[in-house]
C-alpha cells in the first residue's frame, strides 16, 4: 500500500472513530445533544487546538516541546499581573514576549548546542514553572479587565465565543504556513531528513529556531486565552497541556520522528479529544479516567502506526 493510501486509511479511521463516538453520545446521552453543549465543545478545545497546532509543527520537524504547558502558564501569570497592575493593552505584547523568550531558549539550546529537544524543553519547563510559581507565590492572581476577557475568550461574535475565533485564526495561519509557504515546505523537508535537507542547501538551523520561537509565541496567546476564560491565573494553569497537545497531534496522524502530519488532521485529533472529554464528563466519567484513556490512546496509536509501517531496521 502506498504511503498516501495509508494516510487516507488513517484519515478514514480517525473520522470514523469521531463519527462513532459522536453518534454513541448522541444516542446515549440527552445532555450531549443539547446545542449549547455542542457549541461549548468549540470553546473548550480552543486552547488545546492552538497548542496542538503548534506541537504539530514541532513534531513534523522531528523535534518535541515538553515546555509548552509551563510556558503558557508563565505567560498567563505574567499577563494577569500586568493586567492587575493596570498596564492595560501592554499586557498583550508582554504575554507574547514571555512565550517568545522561552521559545527562543528552546531553539537556541537545540540548534546551537545540539541538546536533545526533550532535555532542552525540560530545562525551559523548569524555568517557566519557576517564574510562574515565584510570581504567584502559590496564590491565584485575580484581575479585572473585561475588555481583555471579552477580547480573548468571553466575547461573542457570530454566535461563537472569541476564544473559538482565535482558534480559527491560528488554524488558518498554521495551515497557510505549512501548506502554502516555502517555510512550511522546509519544515516538512527537514522533518523528513535533516541531513539531506542541509545537503540541499535548506536553512535547517534557522527553520528549527523559528519553529520553536513560533511555538513559544503561540503559548503566549494560549496563556492569554486561559486567563481570559476564567478571570484569574494560577501557576499550574496549563500544566499537562503538552501531553494533550502531543496526544491530539499524534492521534491526528502526526508521525513522531518527523516528516508526516498536517494541521487539518490534527484538528480532527483535537476534535476527537474534545468530544471525548466532553462526552466522558457528561457521562460522569471523571477527569482522571479521561487521563488514563488518553494515555493509553497515545501509546496505542503510536504503537499501531509503528507496527503498520513495519519494523524499522534496528539491529
Amino acid at each position, binding site marked *: 500500500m502506498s504511503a498516501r493510501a495509508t494516510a487516507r486509511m488513517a484519515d478514514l479511521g480517525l473520522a470514523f472513530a469521531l463519527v462513532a463516538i459522536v453518534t454513541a453520545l448522541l444516542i446515549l446521552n440527552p445532555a450531549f445533544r443539547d446545542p449549547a453543549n455542542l457549541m461549548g465543545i468549540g470553546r473548550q478545545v480552543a486552547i488545546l487546538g492552538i497548542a496542538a497546532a503548534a506541537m504539530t509543527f514541532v513534531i513534523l520537524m522531528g523535534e518535541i516541546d515538553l515546555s509548552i504547558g509551563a510556558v503558557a502558564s508563565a505567560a498567563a501569570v505574567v499577563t494577569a499581573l500586568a493586567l492587575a497592575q493596570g498596564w492595560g493593552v501592554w499586557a498583550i505584547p508582554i504575554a507574547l514576549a514571555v512565550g517568545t523568550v522561552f521559545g527562543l531558549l528552546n531553539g537556541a539550546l537545540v540548534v546551537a548546542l545540539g541538546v536533545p529537544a526533550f532535555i532542552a524543553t*525540560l530545562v525551559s519547563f523548569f524555568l517557566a514553572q519557576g517564574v510562574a510559581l515565584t510570581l504567584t507565590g502559590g496564590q491565584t492572581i485575580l484581575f479585572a479587565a473585561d475588555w481583555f476577557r471579552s477580547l480573548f475568550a468571553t466575547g461573542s461574535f457570530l454566535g461563537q465565543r472569541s476564544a473559538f475565533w482565535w482558534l480559527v485564526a491560528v488554524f488558518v495561519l498554521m495551515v497557510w504556513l505549512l501548506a502554502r509557504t516555502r517555510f512550511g515546505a522546509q519544515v516538512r523537508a527537514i522533518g523528513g531528513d535533516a541531513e539531506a535537507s542541509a545537503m540541499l542547501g535548506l536553512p535547517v538551523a534557522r527553520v528549527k529556531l523559528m519553529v520553536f520561537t513560533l511555538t513559544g509565541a503561540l503559548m503566549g496567546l494560549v496563556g492569554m486565552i486561559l486567563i481570559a476564560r476564567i478571570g484569574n491565573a494560577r501557576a499550574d494553569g496549563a500544566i499537562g497541556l503538552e501531553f494533550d497537545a502531543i496526544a491530539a497531534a499524534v492521534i491526528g496522524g502526526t508521525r513522531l520522528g518527523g516528516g508526516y502530519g498536517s494541521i487539518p488532521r490534527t484538528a480532527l485529533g483535537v476534535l476527537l479529544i474534545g468530544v471525548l472529554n466532553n462526552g466522558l464528563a457528561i457521562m460522569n466519567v471523571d477527569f482522571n479516567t479521561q487521563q488514563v484513556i488518553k494515555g493509553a490512546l497515545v501509546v496505542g496509536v503510536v504503537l499501531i502506526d509503528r507496527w503498520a509501517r513495519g519494523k524499522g531496521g534496528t539491529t
Partner: protein
Amino acid sequence: MTTVAALRMARTRRAAALLRDLLPYAALVLVVGYFAFASEFFLNTRNFERLVTDSATLMLVAFGMTMVILLGEIDLSVGAVVALLSVILAQLMAAGVGWPLAVLLVLLAGMGIGGLNGVITVLGDIPSFITTLGMMAIATGLAFVVTGSVSVAIMQDRFLDLFYDDRLLGLPVPLWIVLGAFGACGLYLNRTVAGHELFALGANQKAAALSGVPVKRRKITVFVIMGALVAIAACLSAARLGSGAPGSVPALTLDAIAAVIIGGANLFGGRAFVSRTLMGAALIAVLNNGMVLLNVNIDAQYIIKGLIILLAVVLERLAAGAR
C-alpha cells in the same frame, strides 16, 4: 579547520569537561556553605537527618534515572508512578493485607510498570519520552481513580516505623536504604557483565550490538530496575507522609533528571555515574531543605534549579564538542 582553531576548540572542550566534572561538588560546597552561614539551624544532626529522610525518594529515583539516561533514554513517568504505587500500597494495607506482602506486591507492580515502559519502548521502537509520557498520564489518572481522589491513611505502625522512624546503628532506616540502593546500582554498573555492557550500549548501540551485546534484553532490564527503585521510593514516600496521596509529583521526575544532568551525564547516553548523580541529588536536596529553613520563597527553587541545569547542559555539550 586550521590547526589554531582546532587547538582552541580542544582547549574549550577540556575546560568545559573540567567544569562539568567539578560542577556538582563545587555547587554543593557553595550551597552548603551559604546555608550554614545564613541559617543557624542548617548544620545540625537533626536537620541532616531530616534532609536525608526527605530526599530518600529523590535519591532512589535519581539512581534509576542515571541508568536510563546512560542508555540514552528518559523516564518521565516516575513521579506519577511513585504516587500510584504509594496509593496502591496504602489501599492494600487498608484492606488488611500485611505490610510485608503489600510491599512485595508494590515492588512487583513497579517492576511490571517499568517492564511495560521498556517493552513498549524497545520492542515497539518508540521514543521513551512518548512511552513514559503516556505512562505518566495513565498512572496519574489511575492514582486518583483508585482512591476516589482522597489520601489513604496508613495504619500499620510497623510499616511506618520501619520505613521512616526506625534507626539502625544510630542512623535512620531511609538512609540505609539509600546507601543500599547506591551500592547495588554501583555494583551493577561496575561489577557485572550487564552493567559493563550498558556503557557500550549507551555510547554506541550499533557497535555494541556488533560486539554481541543483547541490546533489547539489556534495555528492558534497565527499565525494570527503574521500576523496582520507583517502588521502593513509593514505600519511603508513603511512610514519610503516613498515607498514600494520589497527587502526582512532577517535581520528583524533574528533580531526578536534574540530578543526573548536574552529575555530568551525557545527554545522548554512554556516560553517567551513580556517584555523581548522588552529588547532584544531594545538591537538589540541600536546596530544597535550605530554602525552607531560610523561609525564602520556596518557589524560587525552580528558577535556581533551572539555571543550574541550564549551566550543566551547556557545559556538557561544550565538553562533548557539539558542533
